């Protein structure tokens, strides 16, 4: 279990004053202080970690958000922003001395502008609701994290959410054009808009994916895209993982960018098939779902090419979706893969590293060895096209010591991802979960450069403390300049 920042006793002693002040800003039922009512906020999508917040505030207007933050800033109260609470990395995990600032009441889509192909929305609207609002005109919002029925667009901005289709359409960051953000001192700032490029520094680029550490987003401008005319999926089964991995690389190298390219290993295939009966082959070691979208003529043409590439790599099973129903059935198995592992173990711990695609067979083999070492099962689903792994470590939380073992197993997997040239997290975020692993990827100097950006936005470090960075340096300490050795300009360098 990770350590959270020490609660501030003085803040806890002021709880009643803080509650009264927040009630004055957000009247009615906008402040939650009753222990039973606070309970639903004690955790997010990473349910292994729980912490009751001091208070929850649910403002309804930008002005209220601004006043809440201004009050917290003036009174040095920590704030944990929260959307729907679906983070898989503990991004919205409360602190015992912090106010959880929930954006759940910001539920309106403000503008749909088809000429400029954007939607302007409040942050509490769900990801799927954006697409639903524009689909009758043939548009969609491309990033589709698997929690899209529940997760909010504001949370997507904070976490730079991905999804199965980001191979072709990009992550959240590639699909956001502007935000309105409230800073910790209560200032409301608009960054970006409906145009494509920033006027000055690309502040939007760092706000997206900042995990609630830089500010609270109160409005977003999103790029929407015409929904492709046709989508077809093909299931490809391989007797060995290496063949499937090579097939993925060959498809990409042929210049084909599928809308999605997912891989499942044998345990994941078996669980999913037993759970939903998607028609997956059970006599293969790896299964690919490749989806192509675009004009029907393009899908038909490319699917033939994909099939040929698969056969050249030893595919023993090929099935092309013949209709929309069948395509959705292919996906149903993949989408059910996580809950389906419940057949193997009561709990699973979902990891999220990215690796260079070519290292996949080796990484799978080493994860298999780790599975034996820890005595815990593992099932693997991947966004194979972009090398994003989601190993599911299987455990039983009721067995003493298994959660700790699962965490250690997970940590070793992520260290392996970094070792082979990859990264700790592809789309779930660092949060509290991967915070202490950051030094595996970044030196202290690297992290200090990131933290100074945090200081530029939030010098008192009141927003979402304890997330992303393994050590809490005070901003004054980070700002200090270390004096360099040489007193004269570098003499041996040529000047001309």
């Amino acid at each position, binding site marked *: 279990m990770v350590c959270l920042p020490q609660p501030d006793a003085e803040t806890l002693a002021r709880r009643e004053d803080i509650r009264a002040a927040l009630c004055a800003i957000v009247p009615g039922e906008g402040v939650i202080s009753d222990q039973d009512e606070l309970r639903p906020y004690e955790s997010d999508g990473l349910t292994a970690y729980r912490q009751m917040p001091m208070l929850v505030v649910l403002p309804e207007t930008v002005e209220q958000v601004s006043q809440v933050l201004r009050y917290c800033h003036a009174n040095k109260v920590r704030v944990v922003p929260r959307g729907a609470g679906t983070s898989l990395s503990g991004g919205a995990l409360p602190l015992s001395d912090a106010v959880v600032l929930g954006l759940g009441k910001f539920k309106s889509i403000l503008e749909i502008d088809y000429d400029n192909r954007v939607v302007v929305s409040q942050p509490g609207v769900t990801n799927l609701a954006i697409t639903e609002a524009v689909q009758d005109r043939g548009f969609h919002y491309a990033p589709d994290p698997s929690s899209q029925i529940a997760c909010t667009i504001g949370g997507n901005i904070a976490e730079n959410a991905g999804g199965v289709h*980001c191979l072709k359409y990009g992550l959240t960051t590639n699909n956001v054009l502007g935000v309105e953000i409230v800073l910790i001192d209560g200032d409301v700032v608009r*960054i970006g808009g409906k145009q494509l490029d920033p006027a000055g520094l690309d502040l939007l680029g760092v706000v997206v994916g900042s995990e609630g550490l830089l500010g609270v987003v109160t409005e977003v401008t999103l790029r929407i895209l015409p929904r492709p005319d046709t989508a077809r999926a093909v299931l490809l089964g391989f007797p060995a993982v290496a063949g499937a991995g090579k097939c993925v690389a060959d498809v990409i190298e042929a210049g084909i960018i599928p809308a999605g390219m997912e891989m499942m290993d044998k345990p994941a295939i078996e669980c999913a098939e037993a759970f939903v009966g998607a028609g997956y082959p059970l006599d293969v070691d790896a299964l690919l779902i490749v989806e192509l979208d675009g004009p029907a003529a393009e899908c038909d043409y490319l699917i033939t090419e994909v099939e040929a590439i698969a056969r050249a790599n030893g595919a023993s099973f090929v099935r092309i979706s013949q209709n929309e129903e069948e395509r959705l059935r292919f996906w149903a198995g993949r989408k059910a893969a996580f809950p389906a592992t419940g057949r193997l173990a009561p709990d699973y711990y979902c990891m999220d590293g990215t690796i260079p695609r070519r290292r996949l067979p080796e990484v799978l083999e080493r994860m298999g060895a780790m599975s034996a070492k820890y005595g815990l099962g593992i099932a693997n689903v991947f966004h194979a096209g972009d090398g994003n792994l989601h190993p599911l470590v299987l455990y039983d939380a009721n067995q003493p010591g298994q959660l700790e073992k699962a965490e250690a197993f997970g940590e070793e997997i992520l260290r392996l991802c970094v070792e082979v040239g990859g990264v700790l997290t592809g789309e779930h975020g660092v949060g509290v979960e991967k915070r202490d692993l950051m030094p595996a990827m970044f030196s202290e*100097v690297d992290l200090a450069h990131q933290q100074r950006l945090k200081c530029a936005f939030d010098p008192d470090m009141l927003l979402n403390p304890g997330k992303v960075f393994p050590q809490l340096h005070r901003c004054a300490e980070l700002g200090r300049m270390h004096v360099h050795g040489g007193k004269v300009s570098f003499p041996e360098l040529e000047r001309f």
Partner: protein
Amino acid sequence: MLRPDNTHDLAEIIGTAVQENRTLEIRGGGGKTDFGAPRACDDVIDMRGFSGVSQYDPAELVLTAGAGTQLSEIESLVAGENQMLAFEPWDYGLLWNRGGVATIGGTIAAGIAGSRRVSMGSARDHLLGFEAVSGRGERFIAGGNVVKNVTGFDLSKLVTGSWGRLVALTQVTLKVVPRPRLVASFALDGLSPAAAQRAMNVAMGSQAEIAAAAYLPGDPSQTVFRLEGIDPSIAARRQLVAEMHAELGMLRPLSEDEGAQFWERVQQFVALGEDQPLWRIHLPPSQGAAMAEKLDPAGEAQWHLDWAGALLWIATSLDADTIRDAAASAGGHATLVRADATMRSRVPALHPPASGVAKLESKVREAFDPMGVFASARFGGGKSARAD
């Protein structure tokens, strides 16, 4: 001029400048030197010592190169593997008759993207990670070597387009993309700006998957759509565009040469005279034609639209405030790209941000460059103006 070739020396140079309270200008090929106000820096760092592609694995679609590597070298290397930089960076120095010197670091630092930006994103969307030395004289890295990565703040976005005000980039890791098997361009001739804008709006909102769309006024004007992909797909999408615009006349296919020439003209803007200040106006896409007509009601200025209307290039002697007010009221902003030294010292190159954003930008600059070693009059900073 200083020309380090490793991060240790570069860090020493910057650290020393900090100690001696000197300012440094970071320069690649120097093609874009006349962008921004004239200024006096104590020294220039020539980054071309950081040259060479250190890693290129076509199967992984990732390339790592020294920031001082020539853009043309990288482009021909990836072309050899039938790949490309999809954001279509181009040789900005041509605007000042200083073509052929662009480096990848300068291209990233200036955030240069071409016509395909509208479908494939900008430089910021293709920089996966980097190594740099900050204004603190410290080497650091950010991002990674894979496409899908949310580990830590996305500093790659921040340094792209920062014009050397935050860090000296020493190495960049870029996403590369397979080259489309086929590229075909189709023109609608003789449309008015408003009709062209409507045609682009409709096409961009359709399933035609337009790779790029631009409008060149003239006699006749040309509204051109670029389609990329495989043959049967282009045929289907061409048919779709022709049908949706049937009442606007024939959708005329351009020959390969004609197409290449058209996009070169759009991108490089060399066709425009140098006697007028050159502006680059970023707008909500549907506003492009209306803005052009507003700024040039008599049809005398030279201008054209790229990015389906989201980018207006215009050479005009209209005063800067008029242009910037018009751009801002349409929800956009205006960059002064090329002008004489007098105008450049008076008019900031980058559209002045609203006060809240200006405050943030200043704090962010301070985070990476606390002593203002990279600050200069070029973007309205510099020692005398550092009190902000």
